């Protein structure tokens, strides 16, 4: 049919077979459709410039330019469909891949990303993001949580208690994301739940991004005294983002319950079986 689809009772995710990238999410119950393009990009870490000598480092996020570079404009894909799960395996580069997963009965899309070791042979520090682009008219607003408790309304290039002179158009709009970030146009809401604290922002209307990994070559002179640069080939990380598309009125119930399930996920312990009966003594 020219498109690639994974689907369960509640969600349909459509991929562009040419690029291998996610291009649409549908909530089949509520009949919501949202074009979503998701891909990985990286910011070139600043080493200091004429405006400021501040390099990007462990404490300071300061990209060299406004626009991140794509890790790849397309992904090699493989598809797996079984009665219990449907997955699209996307390979963006030797150091960046992702599995987009839909289990039976699940009301969200799971994006399990694996990033690293980030190559720095070109002498550029890199700060890698996962970015979701949608046509939602978000009017400069987005929402992030504070320690999984209060959701705070964020406005681009604005602070509620003083007149902001924005000198860092990217980093100055980044906020901590402890469990979730979302954007809405007042009707539909796209929520992304994280499995760890990350930096996140919405630098364009309808866009949402989360920083998943970084590797830097310079110290930021804020007290650490060494660059954020692991020994050897560098570290690689695997995590997941849970993506929910919902109507604004019902979105909170969905992301609150799902975040609880993710943060307090069931713990598994294995045993060979056939052990002796337990005696209190």
């Amino acid at each position: 049919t020219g498109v690639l689809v994974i689907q369960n009772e509640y969600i349909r995710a459509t991929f562009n077979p040419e690029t291998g990238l996610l291009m649409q999410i549908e909530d089949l119950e509520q009949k919501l459709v949202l074009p979503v393009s998701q891909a990985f990009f990286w910011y070139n870490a600043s080493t200091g410039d004429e405006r400021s000598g501040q390099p990007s480092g462990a404490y300071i996020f300061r990209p060299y330019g406004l626009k991140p570079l794509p890790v790849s404009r397309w992904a090699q894909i493989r598809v797996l469909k079984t009665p219990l799960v449907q997955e699209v395996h996307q390979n963006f580069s030797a150091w960046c891949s992702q599995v987009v997963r839909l289990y039976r009965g699940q009301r969200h899309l799971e994006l399990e990303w694996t990033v690293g070791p980030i190559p720095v042979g070109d002498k550029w520090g890199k700060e890698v993001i996962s970015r979701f682009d949608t046509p939602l008219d978000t009017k400069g607003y987005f929402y992030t949580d504070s320690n999984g408790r209060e959701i705070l309304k964020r406005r681009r290039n604005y602070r509620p208690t003083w007149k902001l002179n924005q000198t860092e158009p990217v980093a100055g709009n980044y906020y901590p994301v402890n469990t979730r970030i979302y954007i809405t146009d007042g009707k539909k809401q796209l929520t992304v739940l994280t499995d760890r604290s990350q930096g996140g922002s919405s630098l364009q209307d309808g866009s949402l991004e989360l920083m998943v990994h970084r590797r830097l070559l310079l110290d930021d002179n804020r007290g650490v005294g060494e660059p954020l640069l692991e020994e050897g080939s560098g570290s690689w990380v695997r995590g997941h983002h849970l993506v929910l598309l919902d109507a604004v009125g019902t979105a909170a119930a969905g992301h609150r319950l799902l975040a609880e399930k993710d943060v307090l996920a069931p713990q598994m312990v294995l045993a060979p079986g056939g052990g002796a009966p337990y005696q209190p003594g």
Partner: protein
Amino acid sequence: SGDSAPLEEAMAVLQHHDAVSGTSRQLVANDYARLLAAGWRPGQVLLSNALARLSGSKEAFSICPELNISVCPLSQTSARFQVAIYNPLARKVDRMVRLPVSAGAFLVKDPSGHAVPSDVLLLPQPEGQKPSPELLFSASVPALGFSIYSVARVSLQNPKAHSPERIPQKSR
């Protein structure tokens, strides 16, 4: 005997913003890792003791902290094992369980002995390596409680495993 105090103390130290945000020096990060590992060992014993008491059977319990990279020695080498799943939420949870296993077909039974649907997935590996099989099944766990599922390899003439299919794309 088990002890949760070392892990509790390690977690208290790791509340420092350097540990939370990853801004520590490498040698400090290494020390955080050392503290966590030292706390993990007696904590695991405590957990095993509690599970033995609750389940009524002493077992060589094994936790697989590297499940996110599909590494779990017990499930990968055993033809028969049990999976105890603890749910810390105050409501019932249904969860897909994914475990790396050895090749073959498996029968998964729920706590009441009924077979539950399961799949074996063959995940792609770097070139030159064999695909690694993963067992997938749906588990249901009561509020603030646990369920024990049993897994056994069964002999089938043609065990069915699902592999991801490469989608042909225009060369770039």
